[in-house]
């Protein structure tokens, strides 16, 4: 038992964000999502597609769109109340992070989910100053530019 080993390959997308998640012991998933780069609670609209042949799709998208950055991490996942995911992430080259994701149905007004995330923030004592608006992909790109060891490629 050592958590989930995940490797996210971010592609250059014209609209929103696109990444391929490869995870040991699970089928790969293509994740298309849109999310504002704001700190604090924010809504992410996403679509997940299972990919049985990840290498082929990765090669195709790398050729057509180009790879933006690759992020490797070890994730410990905790589920709270079925719909809330608590992630303890050790991200290669970036450090350790905690992330809260409250999954909402399409018809939700998001009040319950926002309240759940606020409760967790209070419980863990996370101040506004501690919240990071950027994704791991963007942090990895910045780190690559600073030559901290994370590689970005096009």
């Amino acid at each position: 038992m050592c958590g989930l080993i995940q490797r996210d390959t971010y592609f250059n997308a014209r609209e929103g964000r696109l990444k391929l998640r490869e995870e040991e012991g699970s089928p790969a998933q293509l994740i298309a999502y849109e999310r504002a780069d704001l700190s604090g609670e924010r809504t992410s609209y996403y679509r997940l597609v299972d990919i049985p042949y990840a290498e082929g799709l990765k090669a195709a998208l790398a050729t057509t769109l180009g790879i933006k950055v690759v992020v490797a991490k070890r994730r410990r996942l905790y589920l709270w109340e079925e719909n809330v995911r608590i992630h303890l992430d050790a991200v290669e080259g970036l450090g350790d992070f905690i992330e809260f994701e409250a999954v909402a149905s399409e018809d939700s007004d998001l009040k319950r989910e926002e309240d759940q995330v606020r409760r967790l923030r209070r419980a863990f004592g996370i101040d506004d100053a501690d919240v990071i608006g950027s994704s791991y992909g963007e942090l990895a790109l910045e780190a690559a530019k600073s030559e901290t060891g994370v590689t970005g490629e096009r």
Partner: protein
Amino acid sequence: MSAEHVEQVNLRVVRRFYEELWNQWKLDLADEILAGAIRFRGSLGTACEGRQEFRHYAETVRSAFPDWHNQVEEILASEDRVVARMTWTGTQLGKLGEIEPTGARVDYCGAAFFRLSHGVVEEAWAVGDTQELWRALGRL
């Protein structure tokens, strides 16, 4: 459909433990979701080992409290553990140990900790506010 993560499996198993096995008295479900050598401590303080002893314990609770209900107030699952904040309620219409039926309504809270492996419960340990229980049954 995506494959379920083990955390999702564990959470679902514990939900079924309470909502089906206990609340609907589907004791046969024990063969599916409890390990053969399960170690169990119930909220009433009784400890048992193995499915047969567990079933005996559940039948004892059922005969004392036919309307026994397990309310999961909050639940958190990880890759090998699940913890639940619980409220247990029931009406004592049958004998509980040496306590004759009182008709008393019991309502007490507690917590339960589970260890799971490969989608079955290996160990379950529940602790309840039994002071409240015994008070309701006139024993405090």
